[in-house]
């Protein structure tokens, strides 16, 4: 720092700030417009992050080494898979295998009080920890006639531990609430596999088999041993199956989220451009004057860019605060909406907003270029 104070304070009249502060209403509207677009983008990214963490949580969180599915089945969320239950016995004989646990997947109606919803009901082996979900309330130990329900689904319908439910018309008692089991469009419920087979009407059937190997057998080795042991099956290492599932979720959601995010960006850009453009038209004489008294093109460009970026910075701040305020309320009102905003997503939105700020200054800059200082003599 040299004599006379810091460099930023010595540069000159802070014209951009003065112009912004002079019309606070316009600036407030600009910030709100950009802010709401930022909120929209944050919600979409938080939804995407939430899906990644929550909706794939069950598959990604299995303490298994491998998944076995029907041939041509590649994922859990968007596929059908039917296996003979006896295959589990065959796989138990493979060297290195310590545990095989079947899952029977049904998509069926669940009645919670007077309300009916559709859920993915998984029949699991109560004695095995491989298929057991992470329970946040109640117990993970299922007995016949008992059910564990995704916590968001339970919250949505006001279900509590001990409540009576019906799945496909059969009575169950709610004994646990799980997490990592919300796939946004549908949620998971868990019942003993024998109950699931009764609901299905076929006794010797499973959808997937979870396999755990011993500590001395490498996962890849185990998968190679399982492959080809039983005809018409697909064997996946646990991380591969989890990634396949994630890709299905991404493939279904990303195009929608990206489209809406782009629309949000376009709205923000339009608001910013329109309001800056309007401000320049309203202050046409001021810009003509600046040109007349010798303001260089670079100064005018910086002046407009500074206003644009200030509006964007305000909009991002407004948007982040609004998101932080609205997200908990949204979780209460729409429990199935899984929101989890990562720092990367937040940084991404801020970077995109800065880009919007630069783009938003372009059209106003072109307008300023067409203002002629000689027109001041006519006033």
């Amino acid at each position, binding site marked *: 720092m040299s004599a006379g104070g810091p460099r930023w304070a010595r540069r*000159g*009249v802070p*014209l951009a700030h003065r112009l912004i502060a002079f019309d606070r209403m316009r600036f407030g509207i600009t910030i709100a417009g950009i802010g709401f677009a930022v909120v929209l983008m944050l919600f979409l990214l938080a939804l995407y992050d939430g899906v990644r963490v929550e909706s794939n949580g069950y598959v990604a969180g299995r303490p298994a080494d491998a998944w076995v599915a029907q041939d041509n089945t590649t994922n859990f969320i968007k596929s059908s898979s039917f296996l003979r239950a006896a295959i589990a016995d065959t796989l138990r004989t493979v060297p290195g295998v310590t545990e095989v646990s079947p899952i029977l997947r049904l998509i069926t109606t669940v009645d919670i009080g007077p309300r009916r919803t559709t859920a993915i009901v998984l029949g699991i082996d109560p004695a095995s920890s491989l298929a057991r979900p992470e329970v946040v309330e109640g117990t993970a130990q299922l007995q016949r006639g008992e059910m564990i329900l995704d916590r968001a689904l339970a919250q949505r319908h006001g279900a509590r531990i001990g409540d009576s439910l019906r799945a496909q018309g059969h009575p169950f008692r709610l004994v646990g609430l799980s997490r990592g089991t919300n796939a946004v469009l549908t949620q998971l419920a868990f019942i003993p596999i024998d109950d699931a087979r009764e609901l299905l009407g076929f006794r010797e059937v499973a959808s997937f088999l979870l396999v755990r190997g011993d500590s001395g057998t490498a996962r890849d080795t185990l998968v190679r041993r399982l492959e080809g042991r039983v005809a018409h099956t697909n064997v996946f290492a646990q991380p591969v199956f989890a990634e396949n599932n994630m890709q299905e979720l991404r493939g279904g959601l990303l195009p929608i989220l990206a489209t809406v995010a782009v629309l949000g960006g376009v709205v923000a850009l339009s608001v910013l451009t329109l309001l800056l453009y309007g401000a320049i038209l309203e202050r046409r004489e001021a810009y003509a004057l600046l040109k007349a008294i*010798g303001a260089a093109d670079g100064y005018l460009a910086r002046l407009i860019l500074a206003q644009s970026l200030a509006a964007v910075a305000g909009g991002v701040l407004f948007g982040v605060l609004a998101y932080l305020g609205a997200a908990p309320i949204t979780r209460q009102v729409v429990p199935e909406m899984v929101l989890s905003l990562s720092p990367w997503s937040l940084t991404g939105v801020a970077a995109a907003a800065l880009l919007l700020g630069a783009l938003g200054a372009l059209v106003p800059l072109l307008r300023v270029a067409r203002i002629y200082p000689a027109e001041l*003599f006519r*006033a």
Partner: protein
Amino acid sequence: MSEREMAVRLAHVTRVFGAVGETQVRAVDDVTLDLPRGGLTLLMGASGSGKTTLLSLIGGLIAPTAGSVVVEDMSLVGLGQPALTALRLRRIGIVFQAFHLIDALSVRENIELPMNLAGVERPESQARALQLAERFGLHDRLDFRPRALSGGEKQRVAIARALANDPAVILADEPTGSLDARAGDAVIALLHAEARQHRRAVIVASHDPRIAPFADQVVRLAFGRVDGIEVPLR
């Protein structure tokens, strides 16, 4: 007057607006003029006589269709916009009828602005703004916004702004046009004093005959041409 004292030299300057045909207007037509330093030149004429166009040509705000414009020994013909902008910033001050102060800035900041554009940093620009404000009786208005000033005060701020970078040439377009007689007289007296005391070429375009007694030469324009040059008797 010797050639060295000329701040502005116009030689056979013509400016045509519009396309060829009935809509074409020769706003300035073959004007040759020498405008001296240290004097106030009044460009007089009816509306449409070419006064304002002549000011715009001298200020480099528009280019001549023909002829040459030289300001402070620099020919404006062929200069690009950046050079013309720099010339206006450092060597030409402009005063408008409608003042054109920036309402978002205080009086002090309005005066400082041209200095900051020229690279003068704030403590220095603030000090110079204070000096100018004191010279024009505005020292107690420095923190006011323009909307809080009277018309005469606004024009004095505009003159102070025009003088901020100590220009050799002041262009004033109808500087008394928005003022009452008393304020108008005060403004013209200030411009005249600037011309005499600081050796500037002050060029005023006006149809206000009250200004004539303050002028060192009166250039009468009609239909874009010089209709006569008078030196008022004092």
